[in-house]
């Protein structure tokens, strides 16, 4: 199989398989969660669970001062990593038609040069995340193999995308094929690692926020 064939496989059957596993896997994980059910809170409510749940889904995007002051660099790096990943994923010109083909609508792209710079920063922040992890007593203690797997499959798409765009290291076609394959690896692995947080953070925040809203307490 040469680079062109690999690229074709990655763009065709490879992507379809990955998409099925990603969507099916995430739905399965969601079902595993929801099937466990939750008893209603019978205590007399002070406030609205609905508004508490919605509020917490958004309020937790910002850190409380008390933890930010303890770990400012790590928290800023986490923002850079997440936002950088979103920008290169959703606003790089050639990515948008792919979303359009699945979703049925598109949106304007950012200039490629800007995306390239954001990509470089994102790669650095993902590497920095690993350095932070290895240098913190608490994080070293908590880290599992799954954390390293999740780290690697997050880094690879951004790294190969950057290398392909800049025609570095390998011939463009081969690097592009590897880029798409690395995205597919991420899609296949995500439902079975902590990367499920990309969706489950909504339910987690909702559950805590709902309870807090009903009880009239902060969350």
């Amino acid at each position, binding site marked *: 199989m040469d680079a062109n064939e690999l690229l074709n496989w990655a763009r065709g059957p490879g992507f379809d398989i990955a998409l099925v596993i990603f969507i099916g896997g995430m739905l399965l994980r969601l079902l595993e969660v929801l099937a466990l059910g939750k008893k209603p809170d019978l205590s007399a409510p002070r406030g609205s669970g609905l508004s508490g749940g919605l509020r917490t889904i958004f309020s*937790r995007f910002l850190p409380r001062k008390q933890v930010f002051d*303890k770990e400012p660099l790590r928290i800023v790096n986490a923002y850079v990593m997440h936002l950088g990943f979103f920008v290169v994923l959703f606003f790089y010109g050639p990515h948008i038609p792919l979303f359009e083909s699945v979703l049925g609508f598109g949106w304007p792209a950012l200039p490629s040069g800007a995306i390239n710079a954001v990509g470089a920063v994102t790669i650095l922040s993902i590497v920095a995340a690993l350095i932070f992890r290895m240098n*913190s007593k608490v994080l070293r203690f908590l880290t599992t193999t799954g*954390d390293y797997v999740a780290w690697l499959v997050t880094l690879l798409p951004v790294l190969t995308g950057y290398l392909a765009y800049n025609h570095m290291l390998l011939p463009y076609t081969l690097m592009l094929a590897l880029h798409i394959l690395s995205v597919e690896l991420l899609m296949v692995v995500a439902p079975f690692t902590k990367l*499920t947080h990309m969706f489950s*953070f909504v339910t987690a925040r909702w559950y805590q926020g709902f309870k807090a809203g009903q009880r009239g307490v902060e969350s």
Partner: protein
Amino acid sequence: MSAPTVEKGIQAIKGQIDATVASYFSSCVHCGLCAEACLFYTETGDPRYTPINKVEPMKRIWQSEYTLLGRAKKMLGLSKPVDEQTFTDWETLVYDGCSLCGRCSLVCPVGNDISDMIRKIREGFAAAGHAPEGLIGASTRAVEIGSPMGVKLPAVQAQIGHLKKDTGLDAPLDVQGADYMVLLSSMEIMNFPEYMEAIARIMKQAGKTWTISSKAFEATNSGIQIGVSDIARVLVKRVVDAAEELGVKTVISPECGHAFTAIRWDGPNLIGRPYKFEVKHILEVLDEFVEQGLIRTEGKDDQKLTYHDPCQIARKGGVVKQPRNLLNRIASNFVEMEDGGAMNWCCSGGGGVSANERADELKMTAFKKKKSQLDALGVDTLVTACANCRLTLEEGLEEYEMDLPVVGLTEMLAEYLVEDKKEQA
């Protein structure tokens, strides 16, 4: 009760795993920020006290029972099992190293209610026979005698007798249809009789009828702390039966943190139905009385004082404004502690820690957080609204040779009632 076993522990933990727990474990990215919110970590520097690590056994059970990949791993013998050794290793993290203060739950970026998970996992530890002796003793006394400290009705009656003799005020037992049924904590009966006197004065001035039930005067609930819902249910049911029998409108939870959590929030869920009466914390009631002009105060304490928010009353109970309204009315130099309100630091003795002698040394280490907060403020008096916080604070202040009186807010308010001033004059 049949003998506890590891199998029962695992079953009990499985029984606690619901959609919320599964959501929380699915969302944890091992960022470790919860450690920074936990005084057992910040004061010891030991990463084992990272809140999310305390529920690791529950995570293993969730993975191997309720996820596809985990079940596959279990079949292939690749998963880490939860066994006797796991319970032994985690017991001190789950009970000694957590006061269920809930601060971790408020900082988790993905929104995990870690404190709630620790409360849940305790069910498994108790069922597996890995609960601390101190809590087992307190729970047994609560069920058999009626109070975790072994306080019986005659002790309450004796206190009522003293109250009548010293002040001429009454604390009436078993009054049908009273406006309020007042609960007490054992500590208030044994260590802080000022509380009952304060209630009697305040109720008299407010013109409200009140009563203490001879069948259910104890507010504390060791079942909640040890994590045995069956015991918690028995203790809550006592209060509910007594209140509904007397037909009172409102039950007042005393200056005790977890008692409020037990009767206000957990209670209806334990007995499986809403109550026919309201539950309010004493500070909520006092604030209402003041707002409605039912009680009037005169004069202000001019000492520099601060307020320690009991976790279960502020962070988990939402009673944050009320103590401040009250204090500003009766104190001219009230200053906030750093992180005061919903993000307060625990006294280090909540959630059953203070009833667990094995945890004494760890508790005093964790107390350093409160010590540093108090050192930074340099106050003359420390006010709080939880008898358990109060004892823990007094113990910690003594241990670190800090000369600082600790007072309950209800009794402090009673000192500034207008009528009292007239009577004294």
